[in-house]
């Protein structure tokens, strides 16, 4: 089951560039939350702070409190522990090219030393079914490289890979922006089903996508969160003028 995320006074920097400023936000458990905003507004940096991937860049730094359930991820745990509980799907599909489909899906388990064959088999089937890819690949699991799949299939495999470690939160950084419309709608259907079990945070440039999949939406601009509310409210009756300008296409 997913957990809620509480963010207090989160600030992040790349070198001297203050990319996130005083973000305060509560992301409810087992819901999908969309983050929208123009390029460079800090929404990717924000999700990367939620699994401490931000700090893998040597010039990056972050301060503030991020609580996942009861755990303060910057105080109570190591980055590695946090990333095992928070799955991430990236903008472009990034399968491990030397691994079979099977090994890609359970890579998070295998690379952390997990070797029980029966459980690995079950995890592969369960994760690929959750990612709506099982029927398409079940005959080639160990024969084909993960990189031999189509772009849309690769992205669903990457979702299966994130689900295989049984995370509580799933971060998706523009998961469909490199995909065609058919694959995109498959990914959206998937998000719709997954949010009953996981807390999902999805960054998107596509406002229709946000409206379709997310209960809540946050609007980012220039490193600040301008507005956070139910998706319906954001798209029909935003409080802030800047939000209204953005969603009506006046800039961005």
């Amino acid at each position, binding site marked *: 089951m997913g957990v809620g995320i509480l963010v207090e006074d989160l600030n992040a920097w790349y070198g001297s560039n203050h990319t996130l400023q005083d973000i305060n936000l509560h992301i409810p458990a087992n819901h999908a939350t969309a983050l929208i905003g123009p390029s460079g507004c800090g929404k990717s940096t924000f999700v990367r702070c939620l*699994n401490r*991937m931000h700090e*893998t860049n040597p010039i990056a730094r972050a301060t503030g409190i991020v609580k996942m359930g009861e755990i303060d991820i910057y105080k109570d745990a190591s980055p*590695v*522990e*946090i*990333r*095992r*509980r928070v*799955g*991430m799907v*990236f903008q*472009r599909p*990034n*399968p*491990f*090219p*030397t*691994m*079979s489909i099977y090994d890609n899906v359970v*890579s*998070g388990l295998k*690379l*952390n030393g997990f070797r029980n064959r029966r459980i690995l088999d079950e995890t592969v089937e369960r994760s690929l079914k959750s990612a709506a890819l099982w029927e398409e690949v079940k005959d*080639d699991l160990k*024969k*084909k*490289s993960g*990189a*031999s799949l189509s772009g849309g299939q690769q992205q669903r495999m*990457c979702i299966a*890979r*994130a689900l295989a*470690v049984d995370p509580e939160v799933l971060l998706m950084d523009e998961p469909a922006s490199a995909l065609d419309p058919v694959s995109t709608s498959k990914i959206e259907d998937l998000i719709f089903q997954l949010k009953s079990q996981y807390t999902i945070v999805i960054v998107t440039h596509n406002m229709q996508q946000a409206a379709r999949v997310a209960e809540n939406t946050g609007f980012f601009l220039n490193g600040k969160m301008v507005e956070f509310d139910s998706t319906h409210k954001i798209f029909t009756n935003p409080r802030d003028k800047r939000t209204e300008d953005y969603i009506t296409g006046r800039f961005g």
Partner: protein
Amino acid sequence: MDFQTRSMRLNSARRTATNYFVSTLAVLATVVVIAPLVAILFYLIYMGASSLNLAFFTHIPAPVGEAGGGMANSIVGSGIILTLASLMGIPIGIAAGVYLAEFGQGKMLGNAIRFTADVLNGVPSIVMGISIYSLVVMQQKHFSAFAGGIALAIMMVPTITRTTEEMLATVPHAIREAALGLGVPKWRTVVSISLRTASPGIITGCMLAFARVAGETAPLLFTAFGNQFWSFHLNEPIAALPLQIFVYAISPYDEWHRLAWAGALVLIVMIMVSVTLVRIFANRGALKGES
């Protein structure tokens, strides 16, 4: 409209011609590259094949004036020295390359290692032989297979280090992020993802380094020294194919010249066979559609 179509057609004719011309150049260049290799191989077969017989692979060199004899001890000796060199040179070379690519970016130590490797690559092999002579042989007070292995290992390291670094740099950042994002520790990501993904290139680098030192004579002159008899001791002088070829080639005897040709043929075939075997072995686990 008419003018436009005509100029497009002219353009297309010119492009076709250019394409044909450049393709021909590329094929010619390939022939020029391959020709010497084929020529050397055939000349070696022509000169050396007639002296190859079972005795060549089973007997040690015959005393002067006595017919027959072989290079069995040199073949085994070369195998021992090259195994020693690979056991020392490959792990050190790869480890240094991993440091440069994954940990030492922009650091003083990283730049120092990179510079040292490049300089080391340019050190003449005879200088390497003399250096190991004074560092190892003089200390031990005798020549040894071990000293020869060290000399060749040091010659292998720079090539392997730089290839490893370059091959790791071609591994997409997105793949490392994928592993880190799954909660895989950095060291494990480096070993199981970066190195694994770059392994075909790294293996090529190791093979290049191996093939290069397998034929080296100069670094062995003052270290392994050579031996006319059987020796399996790492702490004693040992025979090596390049050394034996050298000794026979500068001798005044026709019989020995023929044996030197045969030795050269065996050496080159051994290098080709070992490189091919490693390739086959390394490709065995490849999957369909692997990029």
